[in-house]
């Protein structure tokens, strides 16, 4: 199988700038075009294990990231995003091109793929049981997700939990994990062998770096998982790790608040969310030390046991 790693960095750069590449991430194929070096660097580093479709006839999404022309070529250079005539984001400083690529891929899925209930949540799996970690920014969701993944949990997604309507399966969308500000160094120390993209400062979300997804998770991107736990993480400095059960109805409402297309899907969304909650144990989880968190997660008992 052809992967991004099959190309040298120079070949990849040339392909991205000319024809673009058809990159497969889970269920979706994206045609990416860009002459911006940091985009090619990021894809080369973090997507090395991902399939590239050489003779692709179809892409679900078409993304172009181009450096703006005119004055902007020299003065505070910017990168422009174009999803085939639609620009979901304003131009950004060229240094933010790779994070912009990541945000755009998320946007493409969350605003189009209505075959799934799409929840703003990380999701990881072990022994066939998946944990959904929904949370607003700043709750430590991605940090916890990165730590779990470094200790052998399989990554399904750090950002978008996709629940297939009808079957209730969790469909992987394995992509790099986005870490912000202090989390970057925390994970560098916690998992020294992890691979990071260069830190980009001053984005709308602060400093950002992306962490490479484990090769094993990428290889298993076709295997769906079943929800077993819905855990709302909350980082609190100095707190001891604590797991508090929450009532299903309350968990349902909180999960609904984190879903992008819950109201758009109407009754199908309600049913899908209900199935997730029915199949899962729901907890609130307060933590500060990652080791304690990992320990508690390793001792979670699946529902019905």
């Amino acid at each position, binding site marked *: 199988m052809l992967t991004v790693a099959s190309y040298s960095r120079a070949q990849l750069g040339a392909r991205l700038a000319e024809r673009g590449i058809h990159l497969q991430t889970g269920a979706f194929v994206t045609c990416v075009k860009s002459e911006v070096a940091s985009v090619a660097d990021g894809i080369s580093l973090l997507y090395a294990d991902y399939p590239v479709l050489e003779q692709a*006839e*179809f*892409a*679900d999404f*078409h993304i172009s990231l181009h450096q703006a022309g005119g004055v902007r070529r020299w003065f505070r250079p910017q990168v422009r995003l174009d999803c*085939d*005539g*639609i620009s979901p984001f304003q131009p950004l400083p060229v240094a933010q091109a790779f994070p912009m690529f990541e945000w755009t891929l998320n946007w493409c899925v969350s605003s*189009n*793929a*209505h*075959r799934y209930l799409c929840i703003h949540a990380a999701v990881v799996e072990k022994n066939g049981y998946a944990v959904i970690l929904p949370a607003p920014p700043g709750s430590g969701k991605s940090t916890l997700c990165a730590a779990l993944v470094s200790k052998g949990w399989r990554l399904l997604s750090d950002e978008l939990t996709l629940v297939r309507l009808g079957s209730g399966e969790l469909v992987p969308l394995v992509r790099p994990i986005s870490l912000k500000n202090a989390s970057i160094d925390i994970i560098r120390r916690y998992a020294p062998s992890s691979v990071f993209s260069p830190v980009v400062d001053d984005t709308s979300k602060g400093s950002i770096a992306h962490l490479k997804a484990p090769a094993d998770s990428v290889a298993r991107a076709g295997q769906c998982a079943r929800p077993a736990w819905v855990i709302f993480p909350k980082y609190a400095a100095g707190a001891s790790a604590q797991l508090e059960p929450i009532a299903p109805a309350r968990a349902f409402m909180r999960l609904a608040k984190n879903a992008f297309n819950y*109201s*758009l*899907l*109407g009754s*199908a969304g309600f049913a899908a969310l209900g199935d997730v909650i029915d199949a899962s144990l729901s907890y609130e989880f307060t933590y500060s030390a990652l080791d304690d968190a990992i320990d508690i997660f390793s001792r979670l008992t699946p529902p019905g046991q």
Partner: protein
Amino acid sequence: MSALPLLVQAFRQPQRLAGFTLVEWDLVLRQAAVANLTAGLCHLAEEAGLLGRIAPQAREHLTWARTVGERHRQAVRFEVGEIRRALAGLDVPLILLKGAAYTLASLPPAPGRLFSDIDILVPRERLAEVEAALMLHGWAASGHDAYDQRYYREWMHELPPMQHVKRQSMIDVHHAILPETAAARPDPALLRASAVAMAGQGDLRVLAPVDMVLHSAVHLFYDGEFDHGLRDLVDIHRLLGEFGKMPGFWDALPVRARALQLERPLFYALRYADMLLGTGSAANMDSAAGAAQLDRPNRPQLVLMDFLFRRALLPSHASCADAYTGIAHFLLYIRGNWLRMPFFLLARHLFHKAFISPKQAAG
């Protein structure tokens, strides 16, 4: 110009949908996305019984869009209910226009048609009451300075757009279908007098079939922006397909166009619907009584208009553009404003928008 874009071919001849290759679907879906016609394309495929024969990757996208379309239809019905509730005590005749009318009357353009505003038509002398009632129920005029307020209230055919403070839904309250300042002045009283009720919708009304087609035509061919040009042309194509089967429709259409001073936009609507979508209105018009007198542009003007509209009515996608697409859009933008306002008023308006509004916004 070369062959019609694939998306246009699909609406012209739905059977084409079964024959598109995967590579063609890759392009059709992108053209449909910018034209806001993906959900409409799904409906077209279902109507033709072809959805099951479409490549699974493409079908997946069509069904994603169908979900959005279904939700939209539900939301529009809900919003119209809320508007009726807000205006219930006024005893004002309420007429729905455009998208909301197609949806509530279950007309062929409705399934899969996405739009951002609900348009209603009320008598001019009742505007103040309607506006006050809507404000009481949560709609507020938003983001308009004193100049904009004057622009709408003095010169336009509608109130400044109102947005619901909680649900963010938009409503445009019209008292006519063309600005006060336009040369053509279709009499709204004529439109209101012919408006028709719908089964199970109480006193809520929509325009009569001929008027609905004429309004759709004037909306498209008096406008300066064509981002949704193809979608609006598809509306006309589908309305004509539906109403064209009614006895007397084709005889009444040119007569009504004359009475409302809307012959020219009707001429363009029929011409480009036939040209791009193969509506086949010309044959019907030829056999209709009094068709020959439909006001049409002179020869050089028609050549120019063909040049402009054959570009501007295509999806705004790179694959549908040629070297003249940009200039066509620009000239039609000028034309749209020109038709809506006399020269000096337009000059003053553009001057204010270009130099005074930005300064005030900065200050």
